[in-house]
């Protein structure tokens, strides 16, 4: 078999995988009259929202299908079959832009059906993920901007001050490692430190064209910080959900602070790490010393996309807007932080007793984190690029290697994965 492969490889011509995709079918299906019947593919979390809508709007018939994590393959199968698309799906961050383009060509532009003033009420930048020029390919449900979580009791005991810059974060980590060995400043969250530092890991610079440059100073300053803190023992190479991490650092309160998304306060620190309410401190995101502003990043978040094959575009777009901005966003069943700003106050109120804020109120910290979002990283739906870090870097870090030694192989993997998916890549 390998022989055949080698022989085939000798034939010079290499057709790109983008073939047959030059003709993006942006046209929508012809619209049907009468009461709408909408097929919904949702994740389990959002199901209750659709059920609320059904109760309020009995004239619309919702067929709600709760799917495991395989929406992409189901869409591809529907595309291949030429039928069987749902009217609406719940999409993840990296799918928001991707599902409008090849090879999915699924999301419809719903801007004609959504009032513009409604869109003005969303957290800035989060809607960028759903828009392309004037077109609106989805509506965001929630977001989870990065914040600095810390152990309020431990900070008081050690007498440290909260860092506001990455340089202070590193310095405090080195001090902590020396004065209190065994205590850490969280896990190595490279994939969150890098976009905050605006490192061009996989940056879209044109149509199907990427820049990949891990030697950029915006990347190397992060690698230096990681290596210094790792060598001192101030960061853990494990993931914050590893049972070992929880046992060794989190549950026994050896975790002084940790950069993690907003939703982790309740689901990580209180539920999984079992810290008492009021001991979980929250502080605004960090900036680099020579920069005036924070370029914050986020973890997670979903949106609603409507099918361009739907015969009830208007009804589906109305449902999408309702899910993102309606009463579902302030219902007690809604676990997430709303992307729709008028609904955020409710979330802040519900979480005020849970978290400790040193200066000011929870609302201030939350606003600082969501208003300074700057999603420098384009979200590519090349799954293997997002997981390339886990594949090329993480195992080595766990074996105690320096991140600088692992970066060349990582860059090579990103470039290979991008090219295999049909992208042209500029390095450097």
């Amino acid at each position: 078999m390998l022989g055949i492969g080698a022989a085939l490889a000798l034939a010079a011509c290499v057709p790109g995988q983008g073939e047959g995709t030059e003709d993006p079918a942006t046209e929508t299906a012809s619209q049907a009259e009468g009461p709408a019947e909408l097929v919904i593919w949702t994740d389990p979390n959002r199901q209750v929202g659709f059920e609320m809508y059904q109760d309020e709007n009995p004239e619309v018939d919702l067929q709600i299908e709760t799917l495991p994590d395989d929406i992409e393959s189901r869409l591809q199968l529907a595309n291949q079959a030429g039928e069987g698309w749902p009217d609406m799906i719940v999409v993840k961050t990296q799918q928001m832009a991707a599902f409008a383009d090849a090879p999915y060509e699924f999301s419809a532009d719903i801007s004609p059906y959504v009032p513009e003033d409604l869109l003005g009420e969303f957290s800035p930048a989060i809607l960028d993920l759903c828009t392309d020029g004037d077109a609106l390919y989805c509506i965001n449900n929630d977001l989870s901007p990065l914040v600095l979580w810390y152990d309020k009791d431990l900070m008081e005991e050690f007498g440290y001050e909260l860092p506001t810059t990455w340089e202070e974060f590193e310095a405090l980590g080195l001090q902590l490692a020396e004065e209190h060995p065994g205590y850490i400043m969280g896990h190595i969250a490279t994939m969150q430190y890098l976009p905050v530092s605006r490192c061009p890991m996989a940056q879209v610079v044109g149509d199907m064209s990427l820049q990949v440059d891990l030697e950029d100073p915006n990347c190397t300053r992060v690698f230096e910080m990681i290596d210094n803190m790792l060598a001192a023992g101030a960061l853990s190479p494990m993931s914050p959900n590893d049972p070992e991490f929880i046992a060794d650092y989190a549950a026994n309160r050896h975790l002084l602070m940790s950069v993690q998304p907003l939703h982790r306060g309740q689901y990580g620190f209180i539920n999984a790490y079992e810290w008492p309410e009021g001991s979980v401190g929250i502080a605004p995101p960090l900036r680099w010393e020579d920069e005036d502003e924070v370029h914050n990043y986020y973890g997670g978040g979903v949106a609603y996309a409507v099918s361009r094959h739907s015969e009830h575009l208007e009804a589906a777009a109305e449902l999408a807007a309702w899910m993102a901005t309606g009463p579902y966003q302030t219902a007690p069943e809604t676990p997430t932080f709303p992307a729709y700003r008028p609904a955020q106050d409710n979330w802040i109120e519900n979480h005020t007793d849970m978290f400790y804020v040193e200066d000011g109120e929870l609302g201030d910290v939350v606003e600082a984190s969501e208003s300074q979002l700057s999603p420098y990283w384009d979200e590519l739906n090349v799954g293997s690029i997002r997981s390339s870090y886990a594949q090329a870097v993480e195992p080595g870090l766990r074996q105690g290697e320096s991140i600088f030694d692992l970066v060349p192989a990582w860059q090579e993997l990103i470039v290979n994965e991008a090219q295999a998916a049909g992208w042209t890549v500029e390095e450097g």
Partner: protein
Amino acid sequence: MSAPTAVRPPRSRSVPTDRPSGRSVTRGQATAGYVLSSLYVLLFVAFAFLPAVYAVYLAFVRPGGGFAGIGNFITVATDFRYVATFKNLGVYALVFLVPTLVISIGLALLLHGRRTGVASTFRVLYYLPHSVIGVAAVLLWLFLLTPRVSPIGGLLESLGMEQFYDVVRPGNPASLAVLFAIIAVWTSGQGILLMFAALSSVPQEVEEAASIDGANAWQMVWHIKLPLLRKWVAYLLITSVAASTQLFAEPQLMSAVTNGAVGTNFSPLQLAYTFAYQYGNFPASAALSIQLLLLGLGGAVLVVKKTGMFRVEV
């Protein structure tokens, strides 16, 4: 694609020369045979044969339509993961096949000749692991291989493996392939049953004749039982080769539990999945699947030729 069901076990009993008594098949028996096998044939055609034919068609069509020649095969073969996936498959197949055969034949030989009660008890015991296969088996193994929660955690830790990553070593494809093979070998109970059944069909007279001639247990195994098992070993080999080309669930799940540290393109079948469902390139996916089918078929042809599996002994 090359489902093991595609290859039927040799029906040596139906070869007339095996039974010179000359019992002929009556019309009624023939009808019953057709009826009983028709359901299988129908399902086989619908869910194995026709999809395979469709895959062959797809493999020569351009993603946007039109004849592609060998374009899709070139796309697949020039993918940077292509060679690596087949290397992984090679290591896996080797580490899976050899112990499977040795264990199946060896344990069946040990069981054969034991008292019925003992033999049937052990048959059940050997088959038990086979009741936990696929995804469930992998989950069980993940539990076993996580030092903090594993019942053999002490053993792992005494070997210097304190974390799941120390055991699984996601950066090392060869060690992963061996791990997947071990998970697969664990379920070779079916092979043991097959071999045991085959041994039971060795005519009593032959064994008696051999022991009258003074053959000891070893000679009996080497000169009587193993040669008579040849066709069954061939069958086991064919189905096992075909099964090993289908490595998918184990690495896929391992990728999920390691948050991607084990990539999603460990085996060729996973790469085919990536082509279809990540790139939307079904023709390239079909081109890769066909290569796996050919691999299974090629293995079968080789085994049949070497062992004379369908040769009728007179």
